[in-house]
């Protein structure tokens, strides 16, 4: 696996036409690896009749609310958790 628990990461800020599991509101945002999940078949190819292989590593990534929604007022301290596939992650700058 490429990333370890506790490591800071960035979510790739790229357009992707077609099915993918990375929601817009985390693209280009900084997060932290919280858990290393198993590897799974890639939904981006499996959604088009492919077998989805090779499997891709999935991570649980947390984001500070203030990173996602800087204008949000109360509750800015909590973190939001999203499962993200490895090919959507980049090393933190």
């Amino acid at each position: 696996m490429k990333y370890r628990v506790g490591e800071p990461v960035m979510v790739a800020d790229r357009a992707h036409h077609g099915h993918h599991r990375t929601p817009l509101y985390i693209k280009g945002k900084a997060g932290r690896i919280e858990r290393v999940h198993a590897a799974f078949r890639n939904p981006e190819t499996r959604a088009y009749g492919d077998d989805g292989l090779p499997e891709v590593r999935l991570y649980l990534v947390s984001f500070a609310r203030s990173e996602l929604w800087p204008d949000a007022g109360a509750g800015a301290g909590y973190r939001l958790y999203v499962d993200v596939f490895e090919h959507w992650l980049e090393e933190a700058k």
Partner: protein
Amino acid sequence: MERGVHDRGGRSTDEPIDRSEHTLEDWEVLTDALVGALARCGLMNVDELRRGIESMPGDEYERASYYERWLFSMETILSEKGVLAAGELDRRAAG
């Protein structure tokens, strides 16, 4: 960046969120079972189901209920694969 109609997280809205539960109708239970059966037979997987839902025109997506979206997707994917002929469901429904 372009946002799919299904990609709703974090989108601002002043509309209240409808949290009410409703009893499933028979066709909804059957739709769920059918998608499960198709997956088991290897005819359609959950990623294809999602991709089919995401291909709905935005206004149709907004109007459709949860399982209506599943039905739309099932017909789209099965037609693509030639399991259903074009217009076959409409013809059968017209009976």
